């Protein structure tokens, strides 16, 4: 009896050790270092939403189109994406051969020499800067070197409810294009007795896109000589404009919490809202009769829109020539074959699609996204923009909730950002 117990205990121990060993074995199996098969490339993406199947189709089409190379696409959920990428980069193992990187993340990895300068290799493969939107290509250029091949640019867009436009006596095919029109429309579309608002001002996300858009339109720059310049007149004007929409013009309710403006838009009680092209499929599913347009010029100086972008980058550790040839072949293929990508609402940065493809031009939202390329602006180019901008979003939140005067809020944000930059 006792012996049996001992044997049981030993077996349990063995089992535990065995399962641990098994873990490490599988880890090894999935290692795809530089020395693996050069004709097979691993491609990481954060597309865990509706855009995942689109990219998967592109990859499958590529694999079918030729028999020499094989691309293996892996999806890491957006929320864990950069953590996973960082761990891969830091261990220099299990790293992908090709990965998607957002424009606002690129500087950080370039500064640490973690992504490859592809200037020469892509040229030899026939990938040319002229083939892409200048804005998108330029986002991947740092000090004259090219680190990224653009996939798309996703700027802020204006979405509006056509039914509410009609009911207010407005032309549902005509979106506002400047501040005066926007204000006039918003007032016409506000009917408090029905709980209906012209433009519901969000106080959290996606202000990371909305506030910079108006700020850039006012001619503002977040960093001046390497120091934060949030509280410039351009900034104060932009934030005052937004807070006035709530408290002075009263075209928005106060105290809008996370996703509050989306909920009201879905309920037909918010006539206009700014959001990214990724929202298209959600509106379609909800069956709203909506229109989409480029953002109006709400600022005082110029037309501009804040945008981010998806880019292809290659880790600096990938040196195998055959592998690089495979990657370039795939990238060349995507330049001409990303119409599939447009179906998720995005506009590919390749001119072969957004300038020449007839099917693309006949789409509703995507050509409007592409029209914004010319004046789209990205986040400032510093490695830790995420951290330096955090105080700004918190203070914009306080100002929009009426807890702080816009000037005071931006002064405070500036002070905190300064402290982070000087750490």
């Amino acid at each position, binding site marked *: 009896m*006792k012996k049996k*117990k*001992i044997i049981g*205990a*030993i077996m*349990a*121990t063995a*089992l*535990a*050790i065995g399962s*641990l060993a098994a873990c490490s074995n599988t880890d090894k199996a999935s290692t795809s270092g530089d020395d693996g098969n050069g004709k097979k490339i691993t491609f990481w993406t954060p597309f865990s939403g509706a855009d995942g199947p689109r990219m998967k189709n592109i990859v499958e089409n590529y694999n079918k189109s030729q028999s020499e190379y094989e691309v293996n696409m892996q999806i890491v959920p957006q929320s864990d994406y*950069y*953590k996973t990428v*960082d*761990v891969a*980069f*830091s261990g220099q193992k299990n790293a992908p051969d090709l990965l998607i990187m957002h424009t606002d993340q690129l500087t*950080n*990895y370039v500064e*640490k020499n*973690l992504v490859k300068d592809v200037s020469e290799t892509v040229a030899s493969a026939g990938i040319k800067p002229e083939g892409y939107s200048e804005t998108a290509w330029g986002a991947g250029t740092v000090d004259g070197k090219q680190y990224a091949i653009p996939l798309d640019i996703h700027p802020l867009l204006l979405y509006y409810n056509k039914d509410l436009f009609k009911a207010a006596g407005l032309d549902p095919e005509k979106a506002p294009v400047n501040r005066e029109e926007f204000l006039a429309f918003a007032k016409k579309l506000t009917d408090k007795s029905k*709980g209906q608002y012209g433009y*519901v001002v969000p*106080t*959290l*996300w996606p202000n990371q896109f909305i506030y910079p858009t108006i700020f850039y339109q006012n001619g503002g720059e977040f960093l001046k000589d390497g120091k934060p310049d949030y509280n410039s007149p351009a900034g104060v004007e932009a934030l005052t404009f937004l807070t006035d929409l709530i408290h002075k013009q009263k075209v928005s*309710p*106060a*105290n*809008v*919490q*996370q*996703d*509050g403006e989306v*909920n*009201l838009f879905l*309920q037909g*009680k918010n006539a206009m809202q700014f959001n990214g092209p990724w929202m298209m499929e959600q509106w379609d599913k909800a069956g709203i009769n909506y229109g989409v347009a480029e953002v109006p010029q709400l600022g005082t100086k110029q037309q501009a829109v804040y945008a981010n972008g998806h880019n292809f980058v290659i880790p600096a550790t990938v040196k195998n020539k055959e592998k690089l040839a495979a990657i370039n072949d795939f990238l060349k293929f995507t330049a001409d074959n990303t119409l599939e990508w447009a179906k998720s609402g995005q506009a590919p940065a390749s001119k072969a699609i957004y300038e020449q493809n007839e099917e693309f031009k006949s789409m509703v939202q995507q050509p409007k996204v592409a029209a914004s390329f010319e004046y789209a602006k990205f986040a400032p180019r510093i490695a*830790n923009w*995420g*951290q330096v901008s*955090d105080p700004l979003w*918190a*203070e914009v*939140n*306080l100002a929009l*909730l009426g*807890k702080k005067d816009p000037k005071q809020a931006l002064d405070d944000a500036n002070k905190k950002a300064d*402290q*982070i930059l000087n*750490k």
Partner: protein
Amino acid sequence: MQRTSWKSKATSSLFVLPYLLLFTVFLIAPIVYGVWISMHEWDLLNPVKEFVGLKNYLNIFDSDSYLHNLFFEGLKNTFLFVIFSVPLLVAVGLGLALLLNALPKKLTGIFRTAYFIPYSVSVSIVAIIWLWIFDTNSGLINQYLQKVGFSAIPWLTDTPWAWVSIIIATLWWTIGFNMVIFTNALNEVSEELYEAGSLDGANRWQTFIHITLPTIKPTMLFVTLTSTIASFNIYGQPYLMTRGGPGTSTQVLLMNIVEEGFNQRQLGNAAAMSIMMALIMIIISLVQFRLTREKKEAMK
């Protein structure tokens, strides 16, 4: 005789071995590794990890460092949550258990399941449900409030309402666990004591204070301790419901640690903050433990 005892000791050690192994691999080793990381300037993307000794800890206490604000503002907010949530988690859990016990046996099962179900839901679902209920302009509660003539309450965009909302959501989500623990403890209370009490003419309140509470005291301590630890680890509810707002007033410590560790990739700083947080939690648990034990001894 001696030999068998040695043998049995060896046997029982063997039984502990699998657990000990897992405990070492998944708990002791990570903690030691965490302490090791906390003594380095550990940027995830920088291959050079410089040993800095206690510098990261000193930075936390240096009021000029941004780490100081990150840690202590987060800690203050976490404390606020703990102070209000723990008494409620214990009291409401016990209250529900008492209610359940008073129900006819046939109904107990249904209600116990009903109260326990939210516990099995993930935090993201909890946050979405309560976001809809608390929505200032289109949420369930405010719709009804306005129908009966009250003005809308900014549930998630103003203090103290943001905390009230987070605590309500937390109670709804986790109360089932405490309730089940208390129900079991209440069943353990011997019927004879109650009979004796009723013979002496004790009313319900007196029975509760003098018989029920002293008997379930160990459970009480257990629930208080686990609730405190769980409340310290608050993260998902404010992260998803208020995003730390208004401003940074519901930005709890764990949010700041995750931000510093995984968004800024400063694992050294984040590890130092976590170790500090763990120490604070250990001290508080010890104090709670002491307080209850001293009372017990005083009673004797």
